[in-house]
């Protein structure tokens, strides 16, 4: 039997080898310095969260309410459980991601709970309780991601499935029956009383697809083409994928009426293509396409036009009083001005004057109650989180992992820029969620999955060979 005999020979050859390797394998478990550092930082993070909740209660009611603190401590136990799980399944993972994500999440919960108190909401109707439940769900899902995905290169194998999933998730809200329009944007799906924003998960799927696609396609994107005015222009046929993504982003802009999401997807693609090819021409082409599309949209789509007017001319009484005008934006600015340098103190401001203070405008609510000092601490935490992500990408050993880490970090940084820039009138306001802070279950799940993938990628870095010589 010819097919079996080589296998048999291989088996007899291979059989002495495992016993040999096993006899010299060193199984000393070293104490994990990284995990101990993470534990210390995580305890500080939980302390910050607990203090924030207690300060909110003292500021609003003047007394402590142990019920909510008990519920929050259950979440704290979950975060500690995640830390213990990392000790077992990802011992060499980055020690900063989990504490930073926990701190931001806890600050968000405290602020949402504070807004609930001001509005007098309680029980299942209150957003704070929902946010806590979603945090628990998101952390469990993140834990599952770390446990199930033991090697990130498995994801590269499913890059086209990821693309398909991403596009389906993006287009899901447009289906009649389950699609739901809230505040003018058709981004949600509704099943019974359960609503979800599938676009949040789509951004992870698209980051996986872009990373997988660009690893294989970057040579043709970076090396072929003519030089015009010192820029390496790509060939027309290589422009295909970028045009497809542009069309998808514009479709979101027009049919789902969401400027922020389309900016996020297109920006993600431009950054990843720039990182993988190092060609400035791609960035210029991409920016030109997006600005061109946005300029046309601002002339033709009324809601985009309104956003531009509110941005450029916020304090004009006509714009301020108009339907969908700058009332909300200006109230947010007034809130931050009221907070000043050190803020009014948690629970002592009036953030509820701004509509949607718990989601889109949570940054201005935090700015009012924690002041410029507190807001900059929060931005510093985002900076550190994203810097860790870029560092993980920089240290990565395979190109897919590098691109994925950069892409996932960029998703976070772009959202922060768009939201904070929007509420502070740096750019026109667009509806994106502030990662980890804003109320919204789907965004929390997506951001915790991003954190989990970054943890997994950073754990891989230290297990990889330094150099592979392959014949």
């Amino acid at each position, binding site marked *: 039997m010819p097919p079996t005999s080589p296998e048999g020979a291989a088996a007899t050859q291979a059989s002495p*080898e495992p016993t040999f*390797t096993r006899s*010299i394998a060193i199984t000393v478990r070293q104490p994990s310095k990284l995990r101990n*550092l993470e534990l210390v*930082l995580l305890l*500080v*993070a939980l*302390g*910050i969260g607990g*203090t*924030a909740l207690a*300060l909110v209660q*003292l*500021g609003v009611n*003047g*007394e402590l309410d142990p019920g909510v603190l008990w519920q929050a401590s259950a979440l704290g136990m979950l975060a500690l459980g995640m830390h213990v799980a990392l000790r077992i399944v990802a011992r060499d993972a980055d*020690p*900063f991601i989990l*504490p*930073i994500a926990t*701190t931001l999440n806890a600050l968000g919960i405290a602020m949402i709970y504070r807004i609930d108190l001001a509005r007098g909401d309680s029980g299942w109707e209150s957003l704070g309780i929902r946010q806590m439940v979603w945090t628990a769900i998101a952390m469990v899902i993140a834990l599952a991601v770390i446990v199930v995905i033991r090697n990130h290169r498995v994801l590269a194998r499913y890059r086209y499935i990821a693309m398909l999933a991403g596009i389906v998730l993006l287009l899901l809200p447009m289906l009649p029956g389950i699609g739901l329009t809230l505040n003018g944007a058709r981004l949600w799906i509704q099943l019974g009383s359960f609503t979800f924003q599938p676009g949040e998960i789509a951004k992870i799927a698209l980051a996986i697809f872009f990373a997988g696609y660009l690893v294989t396609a970057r040579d043709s994107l970076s090396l072929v083409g003519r030089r015009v005015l010192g820029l390496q222009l790509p060939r027309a046929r290589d422009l295909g994928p970028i045009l497809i993504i542009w069309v998808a982003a514009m479709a979101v802009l027009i049919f789902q009426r969401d400027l922020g999401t389309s900016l996020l997807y297109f920006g993600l693609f431009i950054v990843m293509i720039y990182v993988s090819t190092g060609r400035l021409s791609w960035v210029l082409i991409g920016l030109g396409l997006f600005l061109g599309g946005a300029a046309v949209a601002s002339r033709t789509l009324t809601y985009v036009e309104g956003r531009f007017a509110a941005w450029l001319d916020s304090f004009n009484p006509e714009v301020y009083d108009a339907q969908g005008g700058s009332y909300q934006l200006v109230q947010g600015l007034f809130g931050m001005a009221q907070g000043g340098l*050190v*803020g009014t*103190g*948690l629970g*002592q401001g009036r953030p509820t004057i701004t509509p949607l203070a718990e989601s889109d405008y949570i940054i201005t609510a935090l700015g009012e109650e*924690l*002041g410029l*000092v*507190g807001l900059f*601490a*929060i931005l*510093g*935490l985002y900076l*550190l989180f994203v*810097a860790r992500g870029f*560092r993980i990408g920089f240290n990565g050993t395979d190109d897919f992992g590098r691109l994925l880490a950069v892409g996932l970090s960029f998703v976070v940084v772009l959202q922060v820029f768009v939201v904070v820039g929007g509420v502070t009138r740096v750019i026109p306001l667009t509806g994106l969620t502030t990662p980890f802070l804003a109320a919204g279950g789907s965004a929390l799940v997506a951001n915790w999955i991003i954190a989990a993938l970054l943890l997994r990628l950073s754990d891989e870095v230290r*297990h990889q*060979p*330094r*150099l*592979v*010589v*392959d*014949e």
Partner: protein
Amino acid sequence: MSELTLLVLRIGFLILLWAFVFAIVYALRSDLFGQKVRRLPAQNGQSAASAPVVAASAAAPAAAASAAATAPIARTSAPAATADDDEPQAEPPARRLVITSGAKEGMELELGDDQLTIGRSADSGLVIRDDYTSTHHARLMLWSDQWMIQDLDSTNGTFLNGKRVSIPTPVPLNTPVSIGTTTFELRR
């Protein structure tokens, strides 16, 4: 709850937030401001090659100033202070491994303070996959500032400057080490 208590608590909370940020930055300092440990030997090596007297005099105030320096810096500056001795043991150890022939000729990797395992298995530090390499073929170890190569009972052997290695042997700088079809050298 008086106004004053609340004021103290809310200022305290902001301080706690910033303490957390700075704790992370402090833990990350080598990442944000670069690693001192790697850069010092390279500078010493370059200046020692051109003017060893200058290197020795420059290293002396550095060693005096670094009273609170961490252990690796103290260790690398100590050999530099005695650089005018001709003992090869006193020189700082090699920092780079350069592949001089084979499939990845010209590639190099930085050597840390840990050992580097070489072999076909994926858990090796330097993976070499060819017909001659064993699963766990050899390892490079840093013994008192000197890189040693140890053959781990490989089938086809490890060759230092053409001679088969049988016991842990010191690897001098710029000396070819052959494993299978791959040859590498240690450089500073």
